[in-house]
């Protein structure tokens, strides 16, 4: 059974990370939170209409609610009575609340409890089999999520260049006739359908974890869109599988543990990504700081070269009095300048070497 759960978890993670990449790139990450909450309203209402949890109508209704959320937020924003953040923050809690109230009032009719709304029930998913003419084809949710993952993949494949362009330059995309608004809604539908599909397994809040966290991890590792998509699927799948295994061995909540594992991967990338990690950034920044301080000194010296006050301006003491550098810091800057062949020090006076002059001049021309 654990293999079925791992399988389902991996498929859910893969389906979620595809729209997640674009949410992260378009700075819409919190829309996933909004949509994953408000689809509950759609699920409950559609369930009252069709009385069946496996009907495709349920999917359509729920997805429509996701789009409705986005539209309502836009309508609120257009009134100019609230700002963007509030327009999002007002709509989804209201829809979600109605959903939760309906579930708790009609708990007997709906086979959902209010806790499962938040956590999902992936442990129960393998018991619901997809049986065709007596042949057991595996867990039903593996198939349904697989279908959603496939649709997401086709959407990405079909509109790859449009999505790429409208994500990185909405203005240019519009002028080329790509209609970014339409694509935006396409993406929101994709997020909604995925959120509905994943709802059973991981619940409304952890959908956010599977959509955003792997994509954010991938964003720290690469600059290429295609690689980012692949990486985020990979990270999502690995975190999901690890999460399930850890949850089983510690006997903890599966979806919660998956989210924590996603978070751990993110933290590792955040600190140790070769190019964008905090550690490597700190090292680069520290190096650059000294180089920049050297240049600052160089510009200063060049600026006053040949002027009557050169004598005073090039004095070592001047670095403390007028550049406001601490003595230790100033000493280090001067030492690094001399080491790199940019500066010469005679007595207490500093002078640029020919190499130093050339470097500073070319820098200033660029600036």
């Amino acid at each position, binding site marked *: 059974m654990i293999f079925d759960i791992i399988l389902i978890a991996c498929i859910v993670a893969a389906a979620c990370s595809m729209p997640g990449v674009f949410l992260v790139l378009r700075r819409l990450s919190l829309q996933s939170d909004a949509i994953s909450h408000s689809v509950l309203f759609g699920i409950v209402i559609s369930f009252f209409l069709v009385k069946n949890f496996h009907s495709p109508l349920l999917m359509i209704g729920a997805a429509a609610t996701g789009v409705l959320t986005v539209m309502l937020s836009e309508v609120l924003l257009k009134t100019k009575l609230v700002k963007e953040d509030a327009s999002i923050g007002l709509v989804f809690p209201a829809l979600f609340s109605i959903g939760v109230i309906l579930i708790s009032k009609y708990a007997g009719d709906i086979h959902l409890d209010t806790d499962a709304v938040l956590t999902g029930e992936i442990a129960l998913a393998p018991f619901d089999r997809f049986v065709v003419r007596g042949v057991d084809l595996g867990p039903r949710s593996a198939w349904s999520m697989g279908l959603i993952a496939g649709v997401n993949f086709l959407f990405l494949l079909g509109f790859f260049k449009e999505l790429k362009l409208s994500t990185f330059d909405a203005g240019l995309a519009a002028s080329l006739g790509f209609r970014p608004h339409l694509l935006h809604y396409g993406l929101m539908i994709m997020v909604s359908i995925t959120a509905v599909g994943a709802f059973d397994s991981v619940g409304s809040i952890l959908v956010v974890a599977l959509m955003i966290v792997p994509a954010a991890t991938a964003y720290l590792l690469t600059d290429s869109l295609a690689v980012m998509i692949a990486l985020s699927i990979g990270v999502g799948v690995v975190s999901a599988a690890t999460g399930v295994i850890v949850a089983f061995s510690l006997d903890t909540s599966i979806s919660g543990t998956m989210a924590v594992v996603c978070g751990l991967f993110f933290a590792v990338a955040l600190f140790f990504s070769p190019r964008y990690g905090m550690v490597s950034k700190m090292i680069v920044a520290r190096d*650059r700081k000294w180089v920049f301080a050297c240049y*600052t000194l160089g510009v*200063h010296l060049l600026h006053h070269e040949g002027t009557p006050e050169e004598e005073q301006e090039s004095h070592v003491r001047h670095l403390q009095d007028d550049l*406001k550098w601490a003595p230790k810091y100033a000493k280090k800057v001067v030492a690094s300048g001399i080491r790199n062949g940019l500066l010469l020090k005679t007595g207490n006076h500093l002078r640029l070497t020919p190499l130093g002059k050339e470097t500073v001049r070319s820098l200033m021309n660029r*600036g």
Partner: protein
Amino acid sequence: MTKPSPSPILPLEVTDLTVAYHEKPVLWDVDCAIDEGTLLAIVGPNGAGKSTFIKACLGLIPTAAGRVKVFGKTYAVQRKRVGYVPQRESVDWDFPTHALDVVTMGRYGHLGWFMRPGKTDRDMAMDALEKVGMAEFARRQISQLSGGQQQRVFLARALVQDADLYFMDEPFSGVDAATERSIIQLLQELRSKGKTVIVVHHDLQTLKEYFDWCMLLNVRRIALGPVDEVLTKENLHRAYGGRSAFLRS
């Protein structure tokens, strides 16, 4: 004027000011010394570091190197002698407050912690609004003011600080011609009272008419002096590059 003589205490004395964002220089080794009673314009192309210069003088952003002296001491000490007009776009004008209230904020620096602005503060604010011709709009919600009126409110807020040195970041942006004239009149009045006013400006056409001194800036200080001396073809070319021909015409 590159190096001040040590005797008089200058309103503003900046030496070797360097500011960088992420190690990219925005201002490089800028020196300047401004005499009392000067109406100075800072001009230069977009991204030249004009606003940055003001913000660095006010200690709003960290500096990589350099020293700023206001009336001979650091800004932190002389804060009460300095007034500031930020860019109009820097605030949300839909904020729930009215013009008088915004102007009263200019008194906060004098009030100290826990103290509420009292009647004297409100009277001062009202006087300042009167001075900028906005008295009748005192209770008007700030989003219902025109761009020029909003700028006047900001100006009144700086006036109420009762300072000796003023920094103004683009006080003419987005204002109508009438407001522009009345603002410059006010600035000239301040100067005749011996106050020093430093203004970020971007219109070279009106420079000569409005200001007596000018600093041409493009990351480095290109020139500083009386407007006529600064606005030479060579200086403009150094500041604006190829665009200067267009600007001169």
